[in-house]
């Protein structure tokens, strides 16, 4: 138990230490922003510091917190739906090539329709509600998860399954302990991508359907030509996504993919 905790603490410290590079990149972005602000003036690109202050004020206002929570809830609901449905259908298609052949063309069609078109359709079907947002996310994020799950199962090492069978594992045991574990490798990056898509589509759907949340607030800022407010909302949306991704998806991935770290030469870990 102690060793497990020590291992986790070590990984967390490594992760925080690797954050320096990320901070440097963010500092560069801030510098470019400042330069842009000085070149084009306050109206086009407001002062980054002023924007950060606006974010700070917004983040502590109860009204803004409600809006953020609403969008996060919608995005997470859509993400959970697409993750569950995508994984389930993907796994079935991974085992059954016939299902894969049937589903692939459908996915191409679904992927071919831009998310904005889906928003228009779901708005007409479900009105301006949370369902509209969730269904749009489901349609936009499902294909990525599906393909990853299907590939993960289809490209599994069957030798491991045979090994498990020799030691008395039945079909369900092999699925749970062997196949699902192998599918996790491609699945987690796809889930991170799907989560990002979920937030983006949620804001977009809210804005277009005027369904409140961050998207609604952005629409209001646009109507008032309030650039600092719009930028502040964008930053808040990104911050929420980062919190959810690094608080939920990445730790799960790090837990499942612990062995990959062992495979890395030491220089890359830092």
């Amino acid at each position, binding site marked *: 138990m102690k060793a497990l905790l020590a291992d986790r603490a070590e990984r967390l410290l490594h992760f925080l230490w690797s954050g320096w590079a990320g901070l440097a990149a963010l500092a560069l972005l801030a510098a470019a922003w400042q330069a842009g602000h000085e070149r084009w003036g306050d109206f086009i690109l407001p002062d980054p510091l002023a924007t950060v202050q606006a974010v700070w004020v917004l983040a502590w206002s109860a009204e803004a917190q409600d809006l953020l929570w609403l969008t996060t809830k919608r995005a997470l609901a859509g993400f959970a739906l697409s993750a569950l449905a995508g994984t389930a259908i993907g796994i079935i298609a991974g085992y059954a090539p016939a299902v894969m052949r049937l589903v692939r063309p459908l996915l191409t069609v679904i992927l071919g329709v831009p998310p904005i078109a889906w928003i228009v359709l779901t708005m007409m079907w479900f009105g301006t509600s949370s369902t509209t947002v969730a269904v749009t996310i489901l349609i936009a994020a499902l294909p990525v998860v599906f393909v990853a799950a299907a590939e993960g199962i289809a490209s599994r090492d069957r030798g*491991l399954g045979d*090994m498990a*069978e020799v030691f008395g594992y039945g079909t369900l045991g092999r699925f749970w302990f062997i196949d699902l574990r192998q599918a996790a490798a491609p699945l987690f990056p796809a889930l991170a991508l799907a989560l990002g898509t979920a937030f983006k589509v949620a804001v977009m759907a809210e804005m277009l359907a005027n369904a409140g949340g961050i998207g609604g607030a952005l629409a209001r800022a646009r109507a008032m030509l309030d650039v600092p407010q719009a930028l502040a909302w964008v930053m808040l949306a990104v911050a929420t996504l980062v919190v959810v991704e690094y608080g939920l998806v990445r730790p799960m991935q790090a837990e499942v993919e612990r062995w990959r770290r062992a495979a890395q030469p030491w220089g890359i870990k830092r």
Partner: protein
Amino acid sequence: MSAALDLRRVGHAYFGQSVLSGITLSIGAGEVVALVGPSGSGKSTLAQIAAGLTDVREGRVTRGYARHAMVFQDPRLLPWATARDNIAFPLRRSGLPRGEWPARVEQAAAMAELEAEDLAKYPVELSGGMRQRVAIARALVVEPDFVFFDEPFTALDVALKRRMQDLVIAASRRAQFAALFITHDLAEAIRIAHRIAVLELRGRGIAGERFLPEEPATRTEEHCFALRQRFLTEDPLFRHIHDVDERRRP
């Protein structure tokens, strides 16, 4: 005494092409039988049928043992689990209480001569020989009374191969399991087994078998070498064991 494993006229075909037919072989309790034959003669298929991985299409397989285990040509370790968890993997289905797992794992690791600090490593951090040791420990952890070895040391270099063979000889002596050891290396068969069965060139039955003198553990190097020379030069059973052109196989 009933046999640990009894194969009666076992046959198999892939897509209508017969790869094995009329294989009859019986292995007694505690007996190690090496099955030799040129590559492509269907040895691995036979091991898979005997272990229950492939359905029996023809003939009958009777298993008189209680628990079996298998060591494959590639170690087939779970890349996401440490050596310790890999060794413990079969225990989940053995009915052994979880509290007794660590002791069992340590015991199996000791038999495979694995060191304690290596048990915390992932397969990717271990060398080829160490991975095969983990695979052997994983087979021994369930305390099997029958072990299938499917060309387990083919991919290892000569020195490593010998060490692994010594390991199997010592383990079979200690744990008293019966084994079917598939190999195309006659020298390996002579070192490890009590009896050598030779598969017919095209998998049509067992061409013949030879009982080896003494216990494998007491057989000297000179004795093994002399036996090998005698088999290869004087015994017609082993005449074709090395002269197969796999390109000409149907």
